[in-house]
């Protein structure tokens, strides 16, 4: 299947117009040594029908959230996506357009991004948001880099909670390692599953650049940001929150209300399919005074020559195509279509709908938790307040996982792969997509 429309007659006419005899002549300036080894040894192309069959064959070898019961969270969440979302992002005017460098013919994308920036500010309680970055992990890393740009050179210690998503911690370390001047120290979590604020307070000093915590954290626990903010303020460190489940912010007090300097996180929960972990997007918001230090695209409001309201990419001098080696980031192509999906999702659910969806999650998760503790041998993991994710302990993790698998249930993610000290722990997520009947089967499978 090819998409090149040229007939032999087309090719001939075009070659004549160029003044050449053969297509080969277009390449005569390429070194022969390279030309000789250039054949692409891949099978012949397939018809559309054959492609569809092959793709279906591969898809059939994967367990979906429809034919299995997933109680999985850990940074990617199974939520309801209204059909209207895909209807909008399937429109080719949105999906096949480019980054809006010619604003006169990109007002659709630009206005949608302006609306998105507003929605994130409202949801996170922060003053300004960018138009999205790659994912929650790189958003967290970019937040730390931004803090480094803002704070003086005497402050180069990062206090990173061990209860922050393990992959995010890994990405932050990877990004910082190359800069050589930042020291990252891990702060442990306590028995409640939250960051040990006493330990944190002991570690905070005048060399502290920032504190970075999950909110909720990887264990689903809602951290005590009041205490953490107070500690940061006393020490002159910035507070960065990272939210992998932003649906929580529809119900729980958002980072801005706690005085966070930067609020980052993963937007997948809000209208983007799980899709094996990507694409989704990272959201990134901060206090207004830091706006010129932000990475990523920013859309601003302005007027045209006739006074009509319009939108443009702005403060572009921060970015790579102008600032080059002094840019605030290197980001060029971002995750716009996924950001648009979230914008549609948040618009559809709206003020009452998003809150309602969050309430349903809390209800289901707490109900499941209660039943699991009471009706099976499984024990509580941590004691902290949670939204829709929690940790449970079992002495027979393998047996539990096997019993569930035979019932086509994935009961959660075993924490031993990231926290050796938590080898008896399971991270369980319950959302509105887990029917009562599924929870019933989960309870029975775990009880054995």
């Amino acid at each position, binding site marked *: 299947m090819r998409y090149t429309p040229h007939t032999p007659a087309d090719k001939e006419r075009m070659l004549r117009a160029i003044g050449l005899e053969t297509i080969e002549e277009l390449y005569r300036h390429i070194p022969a040594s390279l030309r000789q080894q250039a054949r692409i040894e891949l099978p012949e192309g397939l018809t559309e029908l054959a492609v569809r069959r092959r793709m279906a064959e591969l898809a059939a070898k994967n367990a979906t959230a429809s034919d299995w019961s997933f109680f999985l969270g850990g940074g990617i969440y199974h939520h309801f996506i209204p059909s209207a979302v895909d209807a909008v992002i399937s429109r080719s005017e949105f999906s096949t357009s480019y980054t809006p460098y010619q604003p006169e013919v990109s007002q659709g994308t630009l206005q949608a991004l302006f609306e998105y920036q507003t929605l994130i500010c409202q949801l996170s309680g922060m003053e300004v948001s960018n138009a999205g970055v790659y994912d929650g992990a790189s958003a967290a890393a970019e937040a730390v880099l931004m803090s480094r740009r803002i704070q003086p050179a005497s402050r180069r210690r990062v206090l990173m909670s061990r209860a922050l998503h393990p992959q995010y911690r890994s990405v932050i370390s990877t990004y910082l390692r190359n800069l050589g001047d930042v020291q990252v120290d891990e702060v442990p979590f306590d028995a409640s599953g939250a960051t040990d604020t006493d330990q944190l307070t002991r570690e905070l000093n005048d060399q502290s650049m920032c504190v970075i915590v999950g909110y909720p954290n990887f264990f689903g626990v809602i951290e005590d940001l009041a205490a953490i903010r107070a500690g940061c303020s006393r020490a002159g460190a910035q507070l960065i929150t990272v939210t992998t489940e932003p649906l929580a912010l529809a119900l729980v007090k958002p980072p801005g209300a706690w005085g966070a300097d930067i609020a980052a996180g993963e937007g997948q929960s809000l209208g983007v399919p799980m899709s094996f972990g990507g694409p989704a997007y990272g959201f990134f918001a901060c206090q207004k005074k830091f706006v*010129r230090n932000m990475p990523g695209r920013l859309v601003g409001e302005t007027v045209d020559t006739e006074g009509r309201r319009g939108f443009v990419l702005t403060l*572009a*001098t921060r970015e790579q195509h*102008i*600032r080059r080696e*002094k840019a605030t980031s290197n980001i060029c192509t971002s995750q716009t279509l996924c950001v648009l999906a979230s914008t549609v999702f948040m618009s559809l659910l709206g003020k009452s709908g998003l809150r309602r969806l969050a309430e349903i999650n809390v209800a289901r998760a707490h109900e499941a938790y209660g039943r699991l503790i009471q009706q099976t041998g499984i024990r509580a993991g941590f004691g902290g307040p949670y939204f829709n994710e929690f940790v449970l302990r079992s002495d027979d993790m393998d047996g539990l996982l096997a019993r569930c698998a035979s019932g086509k249930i994935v009961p959660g993610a075993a924490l031993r792969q990231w926290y050796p000290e938590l080898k008896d722990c399971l991270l369980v997520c319950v959302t509105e997509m887990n029917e009562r009947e599924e929870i019933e089967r989960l309870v029975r499978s775990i009880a054995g």
Partner: protein
Amino acid sequence: MEFPEGLKFSKEHEWVLVEGGTATVGITEFAQEELGDIVYVELPEVGEKIVKDDPFGAVESVKAVSDVYAPVSGTVLEINDLLPDNPETINDDPYGDGWMVRVEMTDTDDLKDLMTAEEYAEYVEQQKKEDDDEEDEEEDEEKE
């Protein structure tokens, strides 16, 4: 184009007004014209030390950023607080209200490397001519 007599000029298109041991610094009319509409000015803090030939700030237009280089070394006494909210002042009045910083000079010898108004006017002419020559050169090469 204006080249005020009482000022000194640097190769990076900054001007200096010397008053005793104090120097007031800004960018020239030629510089602001090259940049276009100025949207943001980055200034040092009062008390900061600036070093001759090193950048001490930046001027941004929509499509470009230009570092501003210190024509003399010194300590910053004053910054123009009009500029944060009204960066376009530099476009409107580059030699007057568009001044950027006032510094206490460390070494008045630094002034020796600067040009007079006449020398700078010639320098600007030369710059403009070089740009045209470059274009003509490219034309000639292609014709060959």
